[in-house]
């Protein structure tokens, strides 16, 4: 029977899953993904979460809990940096340790470090270490690695064509959560284009964000996300900021937001943050500051936590869309 490696459906799962899955499968290792986030899954994890964790870490705890007992290994790589010059959030770096200290019935944890801050070409090294855990030959590891890179580039290029991440990701998933996105046309004609920016684990976890993409689409919006913006455009924008934004995802969120704001292609921008997220509190202000210079673009900032009420979210989204539609109608008349 094939060895089973468990990957939590949380944090950077939404970005790196096609890469990890291809790598493991090519080595003949089975990948098990935790269930989609539910009230129960979140609640089960909350019992083990240390104080001062952000919402996203709390959710990730639930996913780890869900995998315990179902897998031979837990895959919780220590993601320090995935590109030159930037860091992943320190809570991610400490995540394997948080998990170890919280649970005592864990399967072996694979917590190989990834630090590509100085040399992005060093990605093969940690992959080798992972492969060696399973006593695989260098040749087969290298082949699996190459294949994983290919799949990842397929994944990323499909995202950049303007497809929504959950739709694209579903072709790599065994049991993708039901897709709740259907590109609806605006009722009042003239599709509204709304940028929805934030960390991918907030944007694409339908439970955590109370299905915000579907809600926006039902209100007649076409949703645009940071993944649809090319890395080059993001870099061009972030280079203009005097102070370096050194969180990988934060840099992407700010860069993509600035690009979309300046391109004149959006009617509104929604920043979706999670409660307890340090970087989000900065990003929110950076984006708000920029958007103030573009009065024709509406801005809404939302903060999610595990108690988020649907009514509050719906009222804000409805008012936000109404605001844009009424303004457009006024300009037309």
């Amino acid at each position: 029977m094939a060895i089973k490696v468990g990957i939590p459906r949380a944090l950077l799962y939404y970005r790196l899953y096609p890469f990890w899955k291809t790598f493991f499968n090519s080595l003949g290792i089975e990948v098990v993904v935790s269930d989609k986030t539910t009230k129960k899954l979140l609640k089960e994890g909350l019992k083990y979460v240390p104080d001062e964790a952000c919402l996203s870490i709390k959710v990730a705890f639930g996913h780890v809990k869900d995998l315990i007992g179902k897998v031979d290994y837990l895959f919780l790589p220590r993601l320090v940096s995935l590109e030159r010059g930037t860091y992943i959030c320190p809570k991610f770096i400490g995540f394997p340790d948080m998990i170890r200290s919280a649970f005592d019935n864990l399967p072996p944890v694979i917590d190989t470090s990834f630090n590509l801050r100085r040399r992005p070409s060093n990605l093969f090294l940690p992959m080798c270490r992972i492969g060696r855990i399973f006593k695989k030959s260098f040749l087969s590891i290298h082949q699996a690695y190459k294949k994983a890179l290919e799949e990842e580039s397929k994944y990323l290029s499909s995202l950049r064509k303007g497809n929504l991440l959950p739709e694209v990701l579903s072709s790599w998933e065994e049991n993708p959560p039901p897709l709740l996105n259907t590109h609806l046309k605006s009722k009042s004609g003239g599709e509204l284009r709304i940028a929805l920016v934030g960390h991918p684990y907030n944007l694409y976890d339908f439970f955590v964000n109370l299905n915000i993409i579907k809600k926006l689409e039902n209100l007649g919006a076409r949703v645009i996300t940071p993944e649809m913006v090319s890395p080059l455009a993001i870099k061009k924008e972030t280079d203009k900021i005097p102070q370096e934004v050194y969180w990988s995802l934060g840099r992407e969120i700010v860069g993509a937001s600035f690009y979309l704001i300046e391109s004149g292609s959006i009617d509104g921008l929604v920043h979706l943050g999670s409660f307890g997220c340090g970087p989000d509190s900065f990003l929110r202000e950076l984006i708000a500051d920029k958007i103030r210079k573009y009065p024709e673009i509406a801005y809404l900032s939302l903060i999610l936590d595990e108690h988020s009420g649907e009514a509050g979210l719906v009222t804000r989204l409805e008012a936000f869309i109404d605001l844009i539609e009424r303004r457009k109608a006024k300009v037309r008349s």
Partner: protein
Amino acid sequence: MNIYLGIDVGSISTNLAVIDEEKKVLAWEYLLTGGRPIEAVQRGLKEIEKKLPSQVEIRGGGSTGSARHLTGILIGADTVKSEIIAHAVAASHLIPEVKTIFEIGGQDSKIIIVRDGVVVDFAMNTICAAGTGSFLDHQAQRLGVPIEEFGNLALQSKTPTRVAGRCTVFAESDMIHKQQTGHATENIVAGLCQALVRNYLNNVGKGKELLPPVVFQGGVAANKGMKAAFEEELGYEVIVPEYYHVMGAIGVAILAQETIVETKKTKFKGFEVSEVDYKTRSFECTGCPNLCEVIEVLMSGEVISRWGDRCGKWEVLEK
């Protein structure tokens, strides 16, 4: 005469307003929701019908407030809009040059920024209910001051007591402490108003450009102490409109009129809905571990609408 009806069903109060083609307010009704929105709407309809001239034709109806979706189904609303837009539309109609709207209701407070008659930005209180009507109500009760006299009492104060208003729980402890050390009630009451205003401006109004004219509406605008405290903090006049407590209803009546211009024909079911047997019931869906609470609305025993499920599988009614 053609008229339009607007209903605003909030957490604390249910408000109705009827306007004519010229958007003039013909009648209004203000009653407590008391946790029973359907009954409140039906009672309100009965009451407001009595106040209307006999020869009227309802051309359109709209609903707003936290029970807007339920109310919309109940009355057959032509438009169902969020409180923010409804309040802004009413304020811009009554005070066309308005730039800033403060709205403080029973359980939420909001700020709406208007430029040239359109909403450009808004914010609502997030996790904190300090500074809303419920808190004032509760404290008035604790101090033994009827809420109607709260504002006048605050105006009598010459040296308002400084009350910590960041959080309702701490505000209450601080207030008790001030009482124990001998501060006069009117000073505490005035201090409370100031604390709430500071809290509102720092939380809800954070980062917003507060330009006059400012319109202050919602139930709490009845409190003269709050109006005075706002004016002192901002340094300019704050306008409390005549219909400050039913602005949401007026706004959504105007929105209904706008909708009818496009759709021509109203979906309003008529005042008879006050006699129809409406009920709601809920059940827990066990289809997945989310265990959503699904709400069903029944008209004369038949399910006419459902909501509350995350996945949407119950929203579609099987015919």
